[in-house]
């Protein structure tokens, strides 16, 4: 197998709230993302999925563990060269296209900001051409560059968010709940667009979401998070056909299915998280690429 593009080893992210209270959002999570694949991170709210995304792109400083990206270590102190490499090759798409775009900036300037910062063009004409092409790629028109975010619908704004990430030609895009604020019919358009772009540019996605049917549809591999621990990881097929961890089983049993007769007879598998003790567990191989968090013995 190829070298992983992103390697997260034992990542911990704690937030100190007061002198004697620390929120342990992420506790020793390890996973890898290979070039061109989509890795889905799922879990309930508070499981740490968003925190992991933000720690990787260094919006937070990880408390512990190591992160390697593109062959370079990107945890700890960054030298200016690595920082530049990270900023160019890793991009993020945010959840809420209303609040993640600056309302006072034109669409063209929002998309072009990365180009401006990294001076990736020689003339103004070239810059505008790049922006225009990018707008076309995400299904908008070059004329839209002169407009402001509030002149667009939610789906169109999320396309702008995607264009902004793509213009740097990144190797990895972190998509944090990027479709959950959109209507169902628009979600499908955006997901199709993301898939097309992946075919074309071979970029990898870290797809963070709570909608399991969408995650299953888009991901090659999946990691299931619970209370800051990665409780199970494997290929999409392995996770959905043979969920091993009781939390994964419970989560999958709760995914609503658009099939009334099946849905009305389904039973929820309960999971009591109160006596879950993950401290003394390690990820253990099930088979293939399928790992589950289980007590060490």
């Amino acid at each position: 197998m190829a070298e992983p593009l992103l390697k997260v080893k034992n990542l911990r992210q704690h937030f100190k709230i007061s002198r004697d209270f620390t929120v342990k959002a992420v506790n020793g999570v390890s996973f890898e993302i290979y070039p061109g694949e989509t890795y889905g991170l799922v879990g309930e709210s508070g499981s740490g999925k968003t925190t992991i995304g933000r720690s990787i792109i260094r919006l937070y400083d990880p408390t512990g563990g190591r992160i390697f990206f593109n062959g370079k270590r990107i945890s700890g102190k960054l030298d200016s060269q690595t920082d530049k490499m990270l900023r160019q090759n890793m991009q993020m798409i945010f959840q809420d296209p209303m609040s993640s775009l600056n309302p006072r900036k034109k669409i063209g300037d929002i998309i072009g900001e990365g180009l401006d910062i990294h001076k990736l063009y020689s003339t103004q004409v070239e810059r505008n051409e790049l922006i225009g092409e990018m707008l076309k790629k995400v299904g908008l028109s070059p004329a839209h560059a002169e407009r402001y975010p509030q002149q667009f619908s939610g789906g169109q704004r999320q396309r702008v968010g995607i264009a902004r990430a793509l213009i740097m030609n990144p190797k990895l895009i972190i998509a944090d709940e990027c479709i959950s604020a959109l209507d169902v019919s628009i979600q499908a358009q955006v997901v199709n667009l993301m898939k097309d772009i992946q075919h074309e540019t071979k970029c990898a996605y870290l797809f963070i979401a709570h909608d399991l049917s969408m995650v299953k549809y888009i991901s090659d591999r999946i990691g299931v998070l619970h209370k800051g621990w990665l409780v199970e990881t494997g290929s999409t097929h392995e996770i959905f056909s043979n969920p091993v961890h009781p939390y994964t089983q419970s989560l999958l049993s709760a995914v609503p299915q658009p099939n009334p007769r099946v849905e009305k007879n389904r039973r929820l598998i309960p999971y009591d998280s109160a006596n879950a003790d993950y401290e003394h567990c390690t990820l253990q191989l099930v088979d293939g690429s399928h790992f589950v968090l289980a007590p060490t013995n």
Partner: protein
Amino acid sequence: MGKNILSIENLDITFRTNAGNVHAIRGVNFDLPRGKTVALVGESGSGKSVTMKAVTGLLDQNAVINSGKILYDGTDLLTLSKKDLRQSINGQQIAMVFQDPMTSLDPTMTIGDQIMEGMFLHKKISASDARQKAVELLKLVGIAEAERRMKNYPHQLSGGMRQRVVIAVALSCEPKILICDEPTTALDVTVQARILNLIKDIQAEMNLSVIYITHDLGVVAKVADFVNVMYAGKVIEFGTVDEIFYDPRHPYTWGLLSAMPDLETDDDRLYSIPGSPPNLLHEPKGDAFAPRNKFALKIDELEAPPMFKISETHSAATWLLHPDAPKVELPAELKARLLRSRKAAHYG
């Protein structure tokens, strides 16, 4: 007593805005049979929330009701004054559960006070009786240590527990109809499943009629008996939940169903509805869905289709159902999907 506890007939609502008149509801018909659950589905802006706001008299100031009737047990709610509506219907007969339990609860009041508030307002009840009833309601919605929780404030509870409290508030005056506006969108799937089961159990126990407003077809499949699909201010298809999920007839319903992948979907692309919903600031000519519909016929541009009856319970507004219309082939992905779900459900 009629079969339907609530009937909306030909409701038509316009909003006056600075930009012009927005024709948000363009003739909605809708029935809620006694003791049943009806879902209203559609994209944002399709008019599902506005319709329910008209029922509860919560429409904004700039709304004008052009025509229509809202019959609750035979009384037209639109003829009642705001005061009468508030005193005798809202909260007492028709109660609502809102989407976000963080904003629909008062952060400065204990949850006990919030549950009892409605009882004091609508009923002659002593403080100790109200207290006792509030504790019972908290137990009913599955909150442990109800006595102690009465003194808690909303921020001391988790999202799922808050939504349980909102349900307890809604049930405090023993309503006949419960309107749930996206009640679980803000919650995790496991919590969502539990809340939906809870509403179902309470419905059976209290003989409630329930309306769900949602765009999540998974939720609809789980809870609904009947489904109304709305688009651009109209109901464009209605039927029993089986008819809508296993035998949909309107191209918009096809689009909605295929846009949400089921766990079996492994096609390369999701079938998506192109474009976006129309801006109702400009009255659409003909069928409002025509510009996004690859099955649109010539007549769709000229005249809006009437409701065509498919069975006693199932109707859809699309010219494709006209006897003279050409026969269309369902998109392959959807066809496979419908076959799959019928098979899994042993339907037909």
